[in-house]
């Protein structure tokens, strides 16, 4: 059950920034918020599949680079008025390292 994988150190993700991560065939986007929380989403915008890892992080959402949808970092759901969702993955930070469960 407890299958946490170490990804990188917190410092390797820029604050209010993103990193791309690959796990097998899966592309995952990591986000670090202004208050140093880290979130992970499948790197596919629910709109037309845009790479969320290339978006801009604000508050608790990321703005997709292709057509500006806003996607909530916690649950991968598009913010109103758009509708759609992408998969979220649990992330935790322990002594400066970022772990993900897939």
């Amino acid at each position, binding site marked *: 059950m407890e299958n946490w994988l170490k990804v*990188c150190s917190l410092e390797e993700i820029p604050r209010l920034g993103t990193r791309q991560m690959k796990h097998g065939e899966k592309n995952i986007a990591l986000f670090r918020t202004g208050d140093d929380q880290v979130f992970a989403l499948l790197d596919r915008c629910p709109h037309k599949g845009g790479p969320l890892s290339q978006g*801009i992080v604000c508050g608790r959402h990321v703005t997709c680079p292709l057509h500006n949808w806003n996607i909530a970092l916690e649950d991968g759901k598009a913010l109103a008025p758009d509708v759609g969702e992408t998969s979220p993955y649990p992330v935790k930070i322990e002594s400066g390292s970022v772990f993900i469960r897939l």
Partner: protein
Amino acid sequence: MQKLKLVMVGNGMAGVRTLEEVLKLAPDLYEITVFGAEPYANYNRIMLSPVLAGEQTIQDIMLNDVGWYAEHGIRLHLNKKIVKIDRQVRVVVAEDGTEAGYDRLILATGSTPFILPLPGNDLAGVIGFRDIHDVDAMVAASRQHKHAVVIGGGLLGLEAANGLKLRGMDVTVVHIAEYLLERQLDQTAARLLQKSLEDKGLKFLLQKQTEQIIGRDGRVSALRFKDGSEIPADLVVMAVGIRPNSALAESAGIHCNRGVVVNDTMQTYDPRIYAVGECVNHRGIAYGLVAPLFEMAKVCANHLAEMGIGRYVGSVTSTKLKVTGIDLFSAGNFSGGGNTEDIVLSDPMGGVYKKLVIQDNKLVGACLYGDTVDGAWYFQLLREGRDVADIRDHLMFGQSHVGDAGHQGQNKAAAMSDDMEVCGCNGVCKGDIVKAIKLNGLFTLDDVKKHTKAASSCGSCTGLVEQILASTLGGDYSPAPAAKSMCGCTDHTHEEVRAVIREQKLLSIPDVMRFMEWRTPNGCASCRPALNYYLIATWPREAQDDPQSRFINERAHANIQKDGTYSVVPRMWGGLTNAADLRRIADVADKYAVPMIRVTGGQRIDLFGIRKEDLPGVWADLDMPSGHAYGKALRTVKTCIGSEFCRFGTQNSTQMGIALEKAFYKMWAPHKVKLAVSGCPRNCAEAAIKDVGVIGVDSGWEIYVGGNGGIKTEVAEFLVKVKTAQEVLEYSGAFLQLYREEARYLDRTVHWLQRVGLDYVKKKVLEDEAGRKALYARLLFAVQGENDPWKERAVAGEARREFEVLTV
């Protein structure tokens, strides 16, 4: 204070719109009670046609659900028909005995379908088309039965027929006149319409008069005509007209005459009682379309709110048919005759027919079939009664052919003036929509519907609203440049923010947000890139550039493509290249298996389909400067051959272009910036549509500014003529620096110029020599402090992280 009691009878489109308007003007004046005979809250009756056609559901067309009434403290009685008004004690009584007293009463009882007085009209399966109940009955019939007959070839009848056909029935439309929609179309257009409906599988019997409806076991089975012929029918929909529903008013002794008679303030003969909607007769007219009803609603609400300044003086109406795939528009007197003149365009093979009717140099009618994009424009000319003598030659070809609008391409929306009506149902003009988009930062059709109500009734202007969205939001998929506050995160304008950054010497985005009390913790994708630009443009070499506040193209220094790969455009100064550079580009293309290589319109080479991880490698191998093709920055300086080779050349345009590009390369700007230099007035480099265009003449160089080749072509304006290449650099540089310092983020030079005016620029750049030199010096100071972004990232280091993918 005791609230006044307002009671409304009839819970339909006109009535509820009146309440909405009252609540806007005087939210606390009334205690409101509503009676509706139908079991539903307020829905969009217009959209019953698409519901019947299976294109929408009842859920989609609800306008105000039960929650809305509760929210506004309105007592709602559904399924209760009022049968009596006692005007003495001021109380209304419902069928089941429910009573409500009123101080003011609104009658909004709509109308009822006219049922022909034929033998058999009371058989099961004979219905009108008016409410959800009728739609349910039609859908149920389509499941069990085969033959449907619609009596009446008007708008309603055709929409019913189309819907039933889509539900799988075999549908015949019976019409008494010689051709369809005789009240909306002339004969030619009607024939075209009939043809395309026949292509959809509908059948028509014209000039047929029904004599009897024949039944079997209590249900309709056939229709017999006056000429003796018969057709099978399991369902008969009567769509031969509507009758204002004024029975209730009449029974209460209120003066009625084909509708409840009202004055210009929507009051009946009993001044406590107002009436709005289809049940009304105003100046002898009973309307059957929502646009005039909504106008009535506004006036009525104005008086109910005790403001007393509105008057309803009648409406000119226009119609459209809501059958998917058929474009039809008509307004005014389109059948001509008398002392009118017709202009006709007829292309039956192409399925287009247009007729304009003119009287005394004014447009009095229009009938369009197949191509209705100019409908709104004609309707406006018609209502304004504008003299069209001066544009008569071009009138038929639409608005984009009139005057100097010729460059604006296919986009009708961009060509419409702000006061032109887009949504006829709700009376929303283009200007209202544009304003709402800009003020509220709207991006989607739904946003616009919510904010302006445009496209929220019959939906036939949806395409136009989308075009307006596209033309308002504009290029590069960038967020809208907000006209007032920067975005939803702050109430400050761009100008205020720029001023504070300068005066308080703010150097970082968090500082600006703290100082100016941003509402969101870290802004949004619209204000962050703007703030980042304002900071580095105001305090070059001091403010820290924040990559996380840049749009991905500027963060990755390459253009993101729709599949998530990138394009790479190296700089080729002034469009010049050489064998060694071309060879390196070829080698890179091989090494990274670049799927597409193309020559850009900016005279350089674009490598497409590069994976993000490969970008640093590509840059290292190319070893050429960044082309900034991805940035709000100096893109290219396009040049022509010029005096070195060209037999017409008067100046060395190629050298001049290279000098400009080398001087201003790495310049960030509010938006992209394009330059061009031509060697003579033949202007092969197209300098007239660039932000700065330079044209060589015998005695020197002419400088033009503010050109643009985008959605809306703008020809650059002449700024100045100078003698030397050094002056070209200084004047162009000063102009660009002024733009960098004063424009709003996402303004192209032309937008900013239109706001401040060319005279202002002339004052700063031409008349004030010291000012010009200072501007130019500030520009050089800024660009010389920038590094080449590709060189930085081609080598290992922190900046490379952006391109490295973590693997787990």
